[in-house]
C-alpha cells in the first residue's frame, strides 16, 4: 500500500513537471507570436434589447462587450485596440455603458474605431469615444439624436367597443399609455427626458471629438452622413479600410512589430459547445489561473 502511494505521488509529480516543462518551453522558446498586441473587437448589430444565445447575431451582447473591453484594459500584452463597428444604434443606457468602458480603456492604451458600413446613433456614440475614428467612404455615420415612439389607439378601442381602465398612483405613471392621447403636461415631461439624453449624447461626442457644442449641435439633429462628409465635418478623422485603422492603432501605440487578433463579443451556443468539449479539470485549471492572474493584475495596479 505504501509502495502504491509512493508510486501515485511519483505519477502526480511527473504530470506536474511535464506541465511546467511544457509551459516554460513554450514561454521561453518564443516561437509562437504573441497574438494580442493589436486587438480588434467586433461590435455588430443593435445595441441592447436582445439576450440569450439565439439573438447573438442580431444584437450586441452588451455584457460580453464590456467584459472584453475591461479585460483588454488590464491585458499587458495588448498595446492598442480597434473597434470594428457595424451598428445602427439601440438603447441608450447600454450604449452609454459601453462608452464608459471605452473611456477606461482609452485612458490606458490607444483605441481606434472603424466603421465599414454603419455607425449610426448609438453606433456612432461608441465610435466617437475612441481616440481616432476611421470610416469607409460610403459608410453611414452620425444620426446623433434620440427618439421614442408612442401610439394612441384610443379611437380604435372606442370603435371596437373596448373600455380600457387604468388605476394609478403617481401623475406620470402611465404617461405614454396607448389607450388615451398624451396630455400636454406628459408630452413636456417625456420630451424633457429625451432632451436630457440628447444633451448627454451631444456633450459626450463634443468632449471625445473635441468639437464645440455650438458647432456640433447643427450636425446633431438626427442626420446621417456618408463617411467622406463625416470626415470633412469633423465627425471622423480619416477615410480608410480596416487595415488602415489597424495601422493607425499601431502608430498610436508605438508598437514596432505587432500581430492582430480578432475578438468576438458574441456569446451563447459557441461558448456552450466549447465548454462541452473541455474537461472539468481543464475548466478548473483555467479558473484557478484566471483568479491568480486577475489578483496579480489588481496588485500591480495598486502598486
Amino acid at each position, binding site marked *: 500500500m505504501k509502495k*502504491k502511494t509512493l508510486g501515485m505521488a511519483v505519477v*502526480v509529480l511527473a*504530470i506536474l513537471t511535464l506541465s511546467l516543462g511544457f509551459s516554460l518551453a513554450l514561454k521561453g522558446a518564443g516561437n509562437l507570436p504573441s*497574438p494580442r498586441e493589436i486587438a480588434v473587437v467586433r461590435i455588430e448589430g443593435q445595441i441592447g434589447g436582445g439576450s440569450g444565445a439565439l439573438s447573438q447575431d442580431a444584437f450586441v451582447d452588451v455584457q460580453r462587450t464590456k467584459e472584453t473591453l475591461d479585460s483588454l484594459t488590464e491585458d499587458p500584452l495588448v498595446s492598442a485596440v480597434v473597434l470594428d463597428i457595424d451598428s445602427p444604434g439601440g438603447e441608450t443606457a447600454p450604449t452609454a455603458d459601453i462608452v464608459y468602458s471605452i473611456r477606461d480603456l482609452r485612458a490606458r492604451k490607444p483605441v481606434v474605431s472603424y466603421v465599414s458600413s454603419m455607425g449610426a446613433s448609438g453606433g456612432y456614440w461608441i465610435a466617437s469615444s475612441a481616440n481616432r475614428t476611421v470610416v469607409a467612404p460610403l459608410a453611414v455615420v452620425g444620426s446623433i439624436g434620440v427618439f421614442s415612439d408612442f401610439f394612441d389607439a384610443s379611437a380604435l378601442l372606442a370603435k371596437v367597443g373596448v373600455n380600457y381602465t387604468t388605476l394609478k398612483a403617481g401623475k406620470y405613471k402611465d404617461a405614454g399609455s396607448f389607450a388615451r392621447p398624451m396630455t400636454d403636461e406628459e408630452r413636456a415631461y417625456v420630451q424633457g427626458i429625451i432632451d436630457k439624453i440628447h444633451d448627454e449624447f451631444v456633450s459626450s461626442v463634443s468632449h471625445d471629438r473635441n468639437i464645440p457644442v455650438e458647432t456640433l449641435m447643427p450636425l446633431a439633429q438626427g442626420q446621417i452622413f456618408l463617411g467622406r462628409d463625416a470626415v470633412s465635418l469633423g465627425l471622423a478623422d480619416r477615410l480608410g479600410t480596416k487595415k488602415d485603422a489597424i495601422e493607425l492603432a499601431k502608430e498610436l501605440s508605438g508598437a514596432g512589430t505587432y500581430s492582430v487578433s480578432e475578438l468576438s463579443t458574441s456569446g451563447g451556443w459557441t461558448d456552450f459547445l466549447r465548454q462541452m468539449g473541455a*474537461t472539468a479539470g481543464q475548466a478548473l485549471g483555467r479558473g484557478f489561473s484566471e483568479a491568480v492572474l486577475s489578483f496579480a493584475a489588481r496588485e500591480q495596479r495598486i502598486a
Partner: protein
Amino acid sequence: MGALLGRRLWAFLIDELVLGAVAAFPLYLLLTPRSDGTGALALAIGAASQALALIYWVSTDYLFGQSLGKMVVRVKTVAASSGRGGGKVGFFQALLRSLTKLVNFLLLLDSLRLLWGGGEQRSTDALAGTTVVEWI
C-alpha cells in the same frame, strides 16, 4: 449500485481537481496571458492539458488499477474476466477506457450505462473488458 456509482463520482471529482491543479493550472497560468483563446497557442495549451490528463488516467489505471481519486474512495479498475479477483488492466484496456474522459460530452454519453448497468461499467469499460469494483 448506488454506493458504487457515488464513489465513482467522488473519485472522478477528486481526479479532476488533481488534474486541474497539476496539469492544467501551470499551463493556463504561464501561457494564458499570451493567448486570446483562439489560434495556435490556445490549441497547444488545450492539447497539452488533454495529453497530460490522458497520461494520468492511463498510467494510473495500468500501473495501479486505481487513480488517486479511486484510491481515496477505495474502488479499483480490474479486468472484467477476473471480477473481484483484481486482475490487472492491460495498457490498451486502460487507454480505451480513458479516451472519453477527455471530452465531457462523450464521457456523459459513455456513463449513461452506469445508470442501469449496476454502476460498474461505462460503455468503454464494456468495450475494453474492464470493470470497477469496491476495493477495501
